[in-house]
């Protein structure tokens, strides 16, 4: 399938010089000199090699259709992340590299979408917003403005992730996090 550069996203699979690559990062730039382009970081599915390419709007980019499969995250063991397909109970142990930056947002039992290519998981897509229980929220200290302003504090979430949240957030509460930016969105009232 021939596509335009704005279709290229993290997690999609593209054909490049006869090999298949999964996109690990795609940055769109309009440099003001020459036409806009997208810089794509991608990893070869067959050889694991990482490469970087820029594409212009006139370029044909061949995006390979991959199947999206709902997977459940189980646990991390010996450097591998285990997922299960709840439809057929198939297990997948994935390397850190496939998960990339998203690994910090994983929590036990969480549902994610896997990009499947020939029965292999080539990328993991985390929901854009995820709820987490706050496991540690120090009381806000007055005058604690060295690294931040006066409205946010660092809290620890159930999966160990540390984020900045409003000072009124207490331990045991549930908050919604934007997994694209790592930013607090809102408190979920039970």
């Amino acid at each position, binding site marked *: 399938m021939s596509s335009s550069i704005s279709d290229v996203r993290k997690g999609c699979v593209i054909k490049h010089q006869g090999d298949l690559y999964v996109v690990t990062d795609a940055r769109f730039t309009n440099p003001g*000199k020459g036409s806009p382009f997208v810089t794509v970081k991608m990893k070869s599915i067959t050889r694991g090699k990482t490469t970087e390419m*820029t594409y212009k709007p006139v370029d044909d980019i061949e995006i390979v259709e991959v199947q999206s499969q709902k997977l459940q995250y189980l646990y991390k063991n010996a450097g591998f992340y285990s997922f299960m397909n709840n439809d057929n109970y198939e297990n997948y142990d994935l390397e850190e590299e496939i998960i990339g930056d998203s690994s910090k947002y994983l929590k036990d039992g969480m549902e994610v979408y896997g990009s499947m290519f020939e029965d292999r998981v080539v990328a993991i897509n985390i929901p854009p917003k995820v709820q987490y229980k706050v496991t540690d929220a120090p009381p806000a200290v007055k005058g604690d403005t060295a690294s931040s302003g*006066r409205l*946010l504090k660092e809290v620890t979430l159930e999966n160990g992730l540390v984020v900045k949240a409003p000072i009124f957030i207490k331990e045991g509460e549930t908050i919604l996090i934007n997994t694209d930016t790592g930013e607090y*969105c809102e408190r979920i009232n039970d």
Partner: protein
Amino acid sequence: MDYSLTTNMNHIYHIDRNFSKLQTRFAILKLIREFLWQDKFVEIEAPTIVALPGQEPNIQPMQVVVKDDKKKSFKGYLHTSPEYTMKKMLATGFEKIFYLGKCFRDEESFGGTHNPEFTMLEWYRQNASYYDLMDDLEKLSKFINKKLKFNNKNIAKKWKRQTMKQVWQEFVGVNLDDYLDSKKMCQLCISLGYKPAKTESYEELFYRIFLNKVEPFIGKDVPTIIYEFPKVMASLSKEINGGKYAERFELYYQGIELANVYTELNDAEEQKKRLQSEQKTRAKNKSLVYPIDEEFIDALKTGIGNCAGGALGVDRLIMLFTMDKDIDNVIVLPMSKLFNKEE
């Protein structure tokens, strides 16, 4: 106060999250002014709404409609750079001037290394060439590095200065002299495995190779100035080397372009020709087309002398010091926080 009763405070939390970076931002803005004032520059103002914006083919101005007291409408644009205004000022005798303020460019990404509304430092020196502006940039960055005690070792080192020809030799392995027209550059692209369209301009072809084979490798350790651009890529700058190249340079650091500087073209006829050619490219690209600012050409006819001018992306300079990868973190309220993209 019960914060939980208010909205989700998207704006206020953004500011709070970046509190210390924003403090750094304003300290840097202050130092830029101090540095230039010490050197007897005058800070000027330029209208941000203009009737006739720049003709650069790949820069899109934002349209605005202004109504007078009788509700008669005028079509204007937010300036993409204060260049025309500043050159009109140079023609009347202003000598060393700078603009530190907002510029606007449409069809840019919200975040990353762009914000459609951004802060630019544009500065001009009379009786100077772009070599003087290379010194300005290096000294300014070192001044900020020292005054704010960043102690960034790479910025403190002596900066690298390489010609475009040298970096093509080093990273592409070819003599750029042999590839100064579209036909030759197109052949080079094909031989390197690209599939350019037949209609691509020299600049497009040049950047295909430059963006993939050169840019990622320059300015990795120390800030690097790349100078002497092929003439066709420097529409507002002075020619050198028998018309093959022009006095334009760009500053790169860690994969980001920070500044673009010229020894200014002061030949009105030549300038008009180049703007007409850019205007045609705009039409071909189906971009907005508007008349050439004839008073800008008049400014050159009146005489702007031998001057050099540059544009520095100030938000990006701040990112360099705060070590940020996302421009949003150094802007009070970036575009990405103003509109709800999900709507």
